[in-house]
């Protein structure tokens, strides 16, 4: 038996244990008007009893802004304007309470940052390698959750190192990877009883059953690319969208960034910040030409990338069904409707 148990009241002790060896433990916390993943303070507790956090823990491995290079602008220096890497070391870290959809999103980001093309992204790589994921299964999926459409589920373990199940009085912890197993072993937690493992299974089945019928976006892969691209569907579909970008900033799978230089005093920085295909500036050329001149093209890009191009390239949709874009869109653009329309 490899499953472990942590009593609800012992959660603090468990987290303290995780923090040993200098590990940073990220957990969902109230941050003014939202719930975000933040490093837990000693004796701090994560908020695990709410639905999924406002922002996914993508920001742990791919922060909204980060510096990549430094340079001196002092012309008297021999190394003036020579780029130097910002050191990428950091502590080992654990993300506690990541939901299964967001963990799958890490695998999608892996493809973009680590597998695609000839080069790995060193910034992502360094953070990703020292991060362990302890996921929390979803006992009560929201009505906006559709992880099961995209190949996941409320208790899916893909991408996780450990799966945690809330049994009420107790958290059940089941290792998924070797790293996860080693971590649990080192913490010397009590073994879970067979009945507890059984209860966990039951909760998972009930959660999945509560989610209703899944539509399969994989059908979109079979469709002709140019037909979808040129479809009159986009003319109307995009109209209500105000191109605010919230959907992409909150999306756990979106990976666009913009590189910017900044100078303070005689010190220059080159960094990257999250960006979004919803903005005209993203594709604006220096000449003034914009290959995505209107909202329609930008809107189409978002969905074609997620649902078609990414499938063609990697076999999966670039959406894990977390439902954030559906929940937070001020204009009620619902990706589920787009999936249905494109697969029809």
């Amino acid at each position, binding site marked *: 038996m490899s499953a472990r148990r942590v009593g609800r009241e012992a959660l603090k002790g468990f987290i303290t244990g995780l923090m040993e060896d200098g590990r940073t433990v990220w957990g969902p916390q109230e941050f003014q008007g939202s719930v975000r993943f933040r490093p837990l303070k000693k004796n701090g507790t994560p908020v695990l009893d709410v639905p999924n956090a406002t922002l996914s823990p993508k920001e742990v491995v791919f922060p909204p802004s980060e510096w990549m290079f430094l340079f001196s602008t002092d012309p008297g220096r021999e190394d003036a304007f020579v780029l130097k890497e910002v050191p990428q070391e950091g502590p080992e870290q654990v993300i506690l309470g990541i939901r299964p959809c967001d963990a799958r999103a890490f695998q999608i980001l892996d493809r973009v940052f680590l597998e695609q093309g000839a080069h790995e992204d060193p910034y992502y790589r360094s953070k990703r390698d020292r991060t362990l994921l302890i996921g929390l299964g979803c006992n009560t999926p929201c009505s906006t959750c559709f992880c099961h459409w995209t190949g996941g589920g409320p208790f899916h373990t893909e991408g996780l190192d450990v799966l945690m199940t809330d049994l009420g009085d107790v958290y059940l912890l089941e290792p998924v990877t070797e790293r996860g197993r080693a971590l649990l072993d080192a913490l010397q937690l009590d073994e879970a009883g067979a009945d507890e493992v059984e209860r966990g299974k039951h909760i998972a089945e009930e959660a999945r059953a509560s989610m209703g019928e899944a539509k399969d976006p994989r059908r979109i892969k079979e469709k002709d690319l140019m037909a979808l691209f040129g479809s009159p569907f986009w003319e109307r579909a995009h109209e209500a969208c105000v191109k605010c970008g919230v959907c992409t900033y909150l999306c756990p799978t979106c990976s666009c960034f*913009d590189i910017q230089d900044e100078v303070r005093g005689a010190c220059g920085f080159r960094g990257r910040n999250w960006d979004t295909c919803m903005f005209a500036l993203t594709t604006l050329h220096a000449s003034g030409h914009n290959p995505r001149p209107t909202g329609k093209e930008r809107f189409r890009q978002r969905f074609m990338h997620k649902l078609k191009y990414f499938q063609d390239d990697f076999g999966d949709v670039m959406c894990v069904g977390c439902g954030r874009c559906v929940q937070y869109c001020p204009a009620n653009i619902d990706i589920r409707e787009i999936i249905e329309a494109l697969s029809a």
Partner: protein
Amino acid sequence: MDTRVERIRSEAKRLLESGEVDLVIGFRKGSIPMVSRPWFVRTVEDTELLHWDGFCSLNLCNYLTKRKEKVAVVAKGCDTRSLVGHIQENQIQREQVLVLGVPCEGMLDRRALQERAEGTEILEVVESDGRVEIRGRGLERSFPRQEVLQHCCRICRHRNPVLHDRLLSAEVEEHQVERYEDVEEIDSQSPEERWAYFQNMLSPCIRCYACRNVCPHCYCTECFVDCSRPQWVGKSLDLNDVFTFHLFRAFHMAGRCTDCGSCERACPVGIPLRVLTRKLEKVVSERWGFEAGTDLEQLPPLATYRPDDPQDFIK
């Protein structure tokens, strides 16, 4: 059915049939509770989906900027005020727009409702007779409508359309509510405290610019945050840059913001941004007696001047 919904549909139908307009912009029911979807109607069939409820909060004036065709728009008080701004700033011509005014009872605050559900997901909201009922798995509660209005609606002084071609229901009573309690509270603090207050308030900002993009009045071809020569403001999450973004976003709204609340609603991390724009609203009103979007004849305050404007702060 709500008689307003019937009126909206029948007016839209008539306008499209008669060819008076090419397009009607209104709302339809959203795919999830607590948000209605802007709906663009060009055919008589599509008028059947037009809808009205307490979640039609998005400022529809957003969709009018630089439009070419003749368009009818379903508009509450704040939308019409923003429209006045748009007409004054030449973003659309008065003759092009047919305003289907809806006197507004205030829109409902989704976040406040969700809070009252205490962790249970709201699956349905029913509005009736000044009450709002929320329903979910094992959840059934109701509140007086007044208690769960958006903050901007609770302090709204122009619930009736200020400009309209048709009025779709009887006018509602206007209230001379106090609008600046929180602004005054901050004003009474020391600079240190105010600085700390805003640093803290802005610290969760992720620079997604949704607050800018959902505002009907943010339509510049190039936003100052996007300029790179000169780079007025750094693009990272450095709090000083975040502060600068908000300082200027608000500044650019002086005398223009109609307090529709779209920015605050769109902000995914829940920053109470309107305190900045309302501070300016207060300044503009105290100094020049101006109120944004209430008078087509009056020029926006920064587009005009009076030789005898107050200048006590100038040496």
